[in-house]
């Protein structure tokens, strides 16, 4: 995996969310939420169901437009940009319920992930000029590398929907990594995973961070987030309740009352 821009010095803040609000027909899903993510960190967003986590996630990744507020990615305003443009800029995501391309093979899923980093079009596909063949071979090599990275290389030619659920999650992460992101957003990556798989996931996320990729997790599973996060944002009813290191969050009274106390 390579970071597409080594030359420019990393900005102090990779992603800045500045007092973003978003409502859905009378329901205020997000109210003036701000968030600063420094490069190379793992940032988690937690909160009870309906706290606005997924809305925040969708606003950042371009699926929704915020009603007000700004989203800065590497110093550039990106709110309201189309999803596919953000991917080109280096933002990748996974889905809460895993959305693989079910009819395609495991390797093909990862190849689709490289869409924005390759360029063969209709004419190239029909002509199969030498550069197209080279590009394809390179993409396959990279794809296999990524599958190895998440531990799925043996299943490269299997239909992706035939994989067990836990492996589908890892495949989805590999597919997102294939877009060569700087920032990877994971929507409840641990949901549906058993304890062993969750541990493997934590390990994988650490390794992804070591590659220089910044991570944002929206999570329910406290054991995972507390263990690996550098910073945690707690949302409650669409508003920021607390922000800080895992240790600070664990001892925050408001958090304990609103979230930890009521849920576990």
């Amino acid at each position, binding site marked *: 995996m390579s970071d597409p821009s080594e030359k420019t010095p990393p900005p102090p803040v990779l992603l800045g969310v500045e007092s973003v609000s978003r409502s859905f027909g009378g329901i205020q899903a997000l109210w003036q939420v701000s968030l600063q993510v420094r490069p190379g960190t793992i940032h988690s967003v937690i909160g009870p169901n309906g706290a606005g986590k997924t809305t925040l996630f969708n606003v950042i*990744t371009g*699926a929704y437009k915020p009603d007000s507020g700004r989203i800065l990615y590497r110093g550039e305003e990106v709110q309201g940009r*189309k*999803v*596919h443009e953000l*991917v*080109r800029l280096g933002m*990748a*995501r996974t*889905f809460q319920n895993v*959305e*693989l*391309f*079910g*009819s*395609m093979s495991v390797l*093909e899923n990862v*190849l*689709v*992930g490289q*869409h*924005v980093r*390759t*360029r*063969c*079009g*209709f004419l*190239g*596909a*029909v002509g*199969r000029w030498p550069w*197209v063949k080279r*590009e*394809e071979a390179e*993409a396959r090599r990279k794809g296999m590398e990524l599958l190895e990275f998440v531990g799925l290389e043996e299943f490269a030619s299997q239909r992706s929907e*035939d994989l*067990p659920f836990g492996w589908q999650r890892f495949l989805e992460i590999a*597919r*997102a990594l294939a*877009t060569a992101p700087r920032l990877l957003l994971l929507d409840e990556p641990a949901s549906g995973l058993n304890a062993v798989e969750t541990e493997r996931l934590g390990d994988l996320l650490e390794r992804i961070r070591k590659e220089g990729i910044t991570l944002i997790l929206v999570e329910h599973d406290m054991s995972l987030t507390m263990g690996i996060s550098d910073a945690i944002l707690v949302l409650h009813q669409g508003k920021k309740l607390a922000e800080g290191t895992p240790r600070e969050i664990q001892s925050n009274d408001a958090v304990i009352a609103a979230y930890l106390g009521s849920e576990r």
Partner: protein
Amino acid sequence: MRQFTFAAAILALGLTVSQSYHLQLLTFIGIHTLLALGLNMLMGYAGQISLGHAAFYGLGAYGTGILTVHWGFSPWAGLPLTLALTFVVAFLVALPMLKLSGYYLGMGTLGFGMIAFVVFREWSSLTGGDSGLVGIPALDVGGVSLSSGKAGYFLVWACVLLAFFACERVVDSRVGRALRAIHDSERAAAAMGIDTSRLKVWVFVFSALLASLAGFLYAHLVTFISPNSFDFLVSVRIVTMVVIGGMASIWGSLLGAAVLTILPEWLHVFTDYEMVVYGLILMTIMIFLPQGLTRGILDIHERSKRKDTAASSAPRS
């Protein structure tokens, strides 16, 4: 390799079949295969329905027909012009249309198809109206006519072979994977950085071009065209070929085209009951094999294989 077998089969069939009725039937299967193949790229791979594909088929036929009959162009000069016209029209139609999804897209293309049909019928100074456009010249190469019997057969099937070749390559490429991704999950495809609306426009144009090519061949083979060959029911028939053959299956297009070309011929024996039987067959296939014949037969085959190895096989989710 498969391409070679296919080419050999085409060659063998062309050399052995001599009865002109059979040759004609095979030639029409070829033309319909082109239509189905194009639409399958749109429906099967990109998951977008078009209920107006006969419009592009007609555009190809009338385009070359008008150029050659009224303006004295040679067919070979007419071909690029006709394709260019189709390209422009398809692009302009697709641009706003593909923002729609599902039924709405189906309806938009249906509306376009009906308008094209009315134009073919009513612009009689150019199209000859209801009585049709007559006297379209046959294709020829250096004085040798390509439009009768065997020559026509080989011409059409050479085009089919090329189209197969092109489609197989497209499907197994970056573009093809992106199309299949849109079909599986448009949301996830966008999250992979695929500009889904742009890609849909291009695949629409691609499939329109294939339909237009089919129309071009049809016009010069039959040398007479009338609006009824391009009406709503023809659009429906193309969709049916794709679905019956099997969506997202290139070889299914061939199967679907063959079935829907031979079936009506065969149904002539039912005379007045023809429509009843045709409707029933269509419904039955869709009810029992909603994945189309190719997939359906494969499924049945797999199921029987699985039964044999049921004891040893691992549970599948």
